[in-house]
């Protein structure tokens, strides 16, 4: 087990930021998803010992995050939300400093810069970087020294659509080639679906559910079908489902034989489409179930 969080609570005065977070993370790419203010960043800060929990414990690699934070940080990489790196130094100077703190071979800087696509900008001052380049630099510093776990907090929030796709591709590549594990914390779910194999759904300071995406889909969402025909009422009467606008929505699989019978009776089928729910739908369903 890479990461374990037990009954984590955090209070700021009377405000309850976390109300008892429990989850575990195995190897892979995990998405920590939830709306703004759900408690994602607070959880990450406790994992990094930036803030103390009011109650509960967190473990990374079996070590307590508050007691062994120095040892843990040697083995992880982090990219924080809205990271602004020191503008007066060059990308190379900054990465060298991070490399020295992590006690790694400084030749890794060139490799990581190349991997994230900033090798040509390494000797430029960070203050001259665009938002996209700055974010790539952030990814490079997080990946320096090939950490076992990389925590990314809203990594694509200030990137353009193309930059987001490229960024996520880099994450996928590192997981595939180096076996690096990622905990990606975001509220942009459509992108997360491209890279994650598991999700942790968090809302209002509690974890609603977590696990492999396909298993969660099975649990919360069913594949459904959208049909358009010359006689929607007849189909609904014989098969079931509901009519919304010009379409019929059917939430079961065993209707094909009966549908063929109706077609043979003269009803014209204009379209039949299998709809697979996405992560956004899953998130919505988990939220609804928890109410």
């Amino acid at each position, binding site marked *: 087990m890479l990461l374990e969080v037990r009954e984590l609570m955090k209070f700021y005065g009377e405000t309850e930021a976390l109300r008892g977070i429990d989850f575990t993370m195995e190897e892979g790419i995990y998405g920590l998803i939830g709306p703004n203010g759900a408690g994602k960043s607070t959880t990450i800060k406790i994992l990094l010992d930036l*803030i103390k929990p009011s109650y509960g414990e967190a473990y990374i690699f079996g070590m307590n995050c508050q007691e062994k934070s120095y040892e843990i940080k040697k083995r992880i990489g982090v990219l924080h939300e809205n990271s602004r790196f020191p503008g007066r130094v060059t990308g190379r100077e900054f990465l060298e400093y991070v490399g020295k703190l*992590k006690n790694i071979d400084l030749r890794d800087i060139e490799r990581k810069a190349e991997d994230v696509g900033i090798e040509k900008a390494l000797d430029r001052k960070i203050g001259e970087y665009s938002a996209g380049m700055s974010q790539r630099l952030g990814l490079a510093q997080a990946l320096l020294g090939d950490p076992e776990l990389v925590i990314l907090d809203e990594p694509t929030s200030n990137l353009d659509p193309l930059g987001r796709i490229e960024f996520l591709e880099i994450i996928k590549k590192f997981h595939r080639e180096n076996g690096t594990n990622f905990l990606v914390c975001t509220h942009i779910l459509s992108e997360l679906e491209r890279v994650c194999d598991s999700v942790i759904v968090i809302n209002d300071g509690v974890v609603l559910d977590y696990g492999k995406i396909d298993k969660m889909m099975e649990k919360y969402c069913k594949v459904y079908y959208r049909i358009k025909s010359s006689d929607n009422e007849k189909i609904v009467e014989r098969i079931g489902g509901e009519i919304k606008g010009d379409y019929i929505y059917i939430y079961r699989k065993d209707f094909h034989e009966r549908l063929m019978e109706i077609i043979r009776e003269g009803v014209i089928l204009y379209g039949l489409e299998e709809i697979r729910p996405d992560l956004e739908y899953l998130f919505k369903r988990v939220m609804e179930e928890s109410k």
Partner: protein
Amino acid sequence: MREIMKWELKNLLKFPILEIIIVFAVFQIGFIRIIFGSFCTIQNGMLTISSFHSQIGQFVYRTVTDNFVNSRTIIYLLASLLFTISFAYELDTNLTKIYMSYPVKRRDYFVSKFAGCFAVIFLTFLFVGIGFAVFMDLDYITVTALSPFILAYALTLAVLILFASSVATAIAVFSKNTSLSFIGSFFVLHTFDSMAAKIKIAPSSFLREIWEIFFTGTTSVKNGEIIYHIPYLDALKTIYFPVIASITLFLISFIYYTRYFEVK
């Protein structure tokens, strides 16, 4: 810790501190040199100031101390600025969050920042002061590494900067806000300096005492040469109180930063 300190110095020196001080020093030294040039170049070969040639000695003594008194304002300004950048501004811009996510111990991080800022201000002003003495041709004081002038200057500078640094650090760490830290530090230091002249920890009080002790020391003549006796014990007694106050403030900030400080 060495790496953090080097990084701190690198970052601080990228800030135009030296330029600010050089402009200030050139203005001060140049101004005095032009106005009082004829007095400054007098070669009297004396080791003491007030005991011999009292008129010129008193004048030069006052020029040196008054310049130092004036430069306190810029020391307060720099201390407020550097400690604000180092602690509060980095917190405001999320840099602290980034740096503390690396394998860095909080105590090393805090001490490196404090020592880095202290070293930058102290060394800059030490060289500006020595440059001032050399440029003013104060050779009756004999500017060597252990001359009373250098010792008195280094000691007062160290105590003053330690005091300013402790106050600025405490305000930066507890306020966690760039504007509040800068304005608050400068306001507290400047107000304390000008309002509390009779209190022993006030810089305006202990600085003058140290200078008095160094420059009104006793002299004796041996083999035709005048020997100057520095009353070190009296000097230590003078700095005892401000140093204790500075260390106490430093420890409060250190304990808070390493045990209770939350990077939000």
